[in-house]
């Protein structure tokens, strides 16, 4: 499914998002680079405060007005950060779309599902992104919602969380966007429903070649769905690579620690290793590597110099002074 040779659909270059006072900014995203190929599924992993949601909102430009954004976000060659709000609105939903974390509150409680799906469809038709053949029922069928005719007449509160997330996904993909961003799309759902939603995302990619960015703290979701993974810590990218490679041979100590902190089952015993300490305050980051204070292998250099990118193989990189030595 990957078109490695085609130009990337999304390039993020040196993206920085800062909040708070100028003198002591909190950089929720600091100098981040990434590329995304058409039809690729990219997983972004990180704990709360790692900046993964801020990154999504920076791409689709829905950050609060107090955020200061620097760098470049190129979608299909266009610098999104330079577009007017009006031009951006033309892209949202039709070319770049998004599914939010909380399906329970992401639908307007006062209108029927049919009304809200129709509203999106009308807008897509107006933009020439869709035609009369695409109907609300068809959209709901496509996301495997049971009894779609009935659902159209129902209100959001009459649907379960899983059903609502399907409806939202249907609305987000009404016009076959080329990039779909999913911010913690399964966090609020039960395990059995989570898998169904993840499968739906894969189906959308396979059918329409939509590139997908899925942001989650659930490592197993990323492992099973995405082609490539980015691990973020304190606003920085710490490791990037093909999913299988990163999960089997993580090279950044944070990635390793994160994987180790999941319960490991060996025979009859279950073990897990906790990471000591806690996530640093973004406004008071120490010099050097942000993870140094919690890192089991940190050396003196880690506390003085920001680690630079270390190429570790085909499309696998890590920001750690020891990435090529330790294992």
């Amino acid at each position, binding site marked *: 499914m990957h078109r490695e040779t085609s130009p990337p659909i999304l390039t993020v270059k040196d993206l920085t998002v800062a909040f708070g006072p100028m003198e002591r900014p909190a950089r929720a995203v600091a100098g981040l680079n990434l590329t995304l190929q058409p039809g690729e599924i990219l997983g972004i992993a990180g704990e709360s405060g790692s900046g993964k949601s801020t990154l999504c909102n920076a791409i*689709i430009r*829905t950050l609060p007005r107090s955020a200061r954004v620097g760098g470049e976000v190129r979608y299909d060659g266009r610098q999104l950060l330079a577009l007017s709000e009006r031009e951006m*609105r*033309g*892209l*949202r*939903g*039709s070319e770049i*779309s*998004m599914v*939010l974390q*909380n399906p329970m*509150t*992401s*639908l*307007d*409680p*006062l*209108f029927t599902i049919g009304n809200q799906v129709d*509203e*999106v469809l009308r*807008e897509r038709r107006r*933009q020439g992104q869709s035609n009369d053949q695409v109907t609300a029922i068809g959209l709901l069928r496509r996301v495997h919602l049971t009894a779609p005719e009935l659902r159209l007449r129902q*209100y959001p*509160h*009459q649907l379960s969380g899983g059903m609502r997330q399907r409806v*939202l996904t249907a*609305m*987000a993909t009404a016009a076959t966007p080329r990039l779909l961003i999913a911010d913690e799309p399964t966090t609020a759902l039960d395990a059995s429903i989570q898998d169904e939603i993840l499968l739906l995302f894969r189906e959308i990619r396979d059918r329409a070649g939509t590139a997908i960015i899925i942001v989650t703290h659930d490592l197993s979701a990323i492992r099973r769905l995405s082609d490539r993974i980015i691990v973020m810590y304190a606003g920085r990218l710490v490791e990037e690579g093909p999913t299988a490679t990163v999960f089997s041979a993580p090279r950044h100590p944070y990635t390793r620690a994160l994987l180790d902190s999941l319960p490991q089952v060996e025979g009859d015993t279950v073990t897990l290793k906790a990471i000591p300490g806690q996530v640093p305050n973004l406004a008071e980051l120490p010099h050097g590597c942000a993870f140094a204070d919690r890192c089991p292998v940190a050396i003196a250099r880690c506390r003085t110099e920001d680690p630079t990118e270390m190429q570790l193989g085909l499309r696998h990189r890590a920001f750690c002074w020891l990435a090529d030595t330790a294992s």
Partner: protein
Amino acid sequence: MGPFILKRIGQTLITLLLLTILIFTLARLTGDPTPLVMPSEATDADRTFFREQYGLDRPLHEQYLVFLRNILSGDFGVSFRYREPAMNLVLAAIGPTLQLAGLSMLLAIIIGVPLGIAAALRQGSWFAAIVRGYAGLGQAMPSFWVGLMLIMLLSITLPIFPSSGYGGVANFVLPCVTLAFFASASVTLLTWANMTEAMRSDFVQMERVLGIPNRLIVLKHALRNASLPIVTYLGLQFGLLLGGAVVTERVFAWPGVGQLVVEAILNRDFPVVQASVLLTAVLFMTVNLCVDLLYAVLDPRVSA
């Protein structure tokens, strides 16, 4: 929808019943009305006759039941002053009051809702600061003073509008503006607060990332959601307007319930006071009941 409304109606009836007890107690607190009503030269026999006629010699709970039976049949007694059934006096006065309150309400909504929406969309701007100032003033200025200032400016210094009276269109201007100024302040702030909250909700964020035009997001989704608490509040606001009307009517010599009740209190005309208070309460509670009905229609979650 059924159980919700039935419950509300039940609550309203109980509340009304309690209110009649309250009014009855208040009426008894004032003591024996006999000396007030009877001329000073009346004989003791006359006084006893009066007490017996009005049942004042019976135990309190019996008096209350009589009172309740009478008001249920619309009999609040005869005005001590006008020698007319109190009920008729109130019914005659309620029309002008409703006209005044209703028109002011309309005006307040026409001014307040758009101001509130616009301020919510321009948080932190100069425009929002000005709206805030307007609303702050409107809340702090007592309506009788606004009325007096308007009279001073627009009927004494510049004689444009009549300062008092009822009948012509011009008569409506000053009282309506007075009341609407006060009411529009709260409507503005309420719309502002609820629009701000609605604009922050997840579904608005979702509509944004779906590229839905701003106009639709604001006017269809955010406003409809914000309107639920606004509608509830407008019911209460109507009560405040009725209250404000009492004072405003006094300023502009408007022949409404407010004027009637103040005169009645000054003249210790208790049947009229009781009739005015109870009928206003019924009116107010009916309005709020209708608002709740409307709420159930607006919010599909209530009917489920």
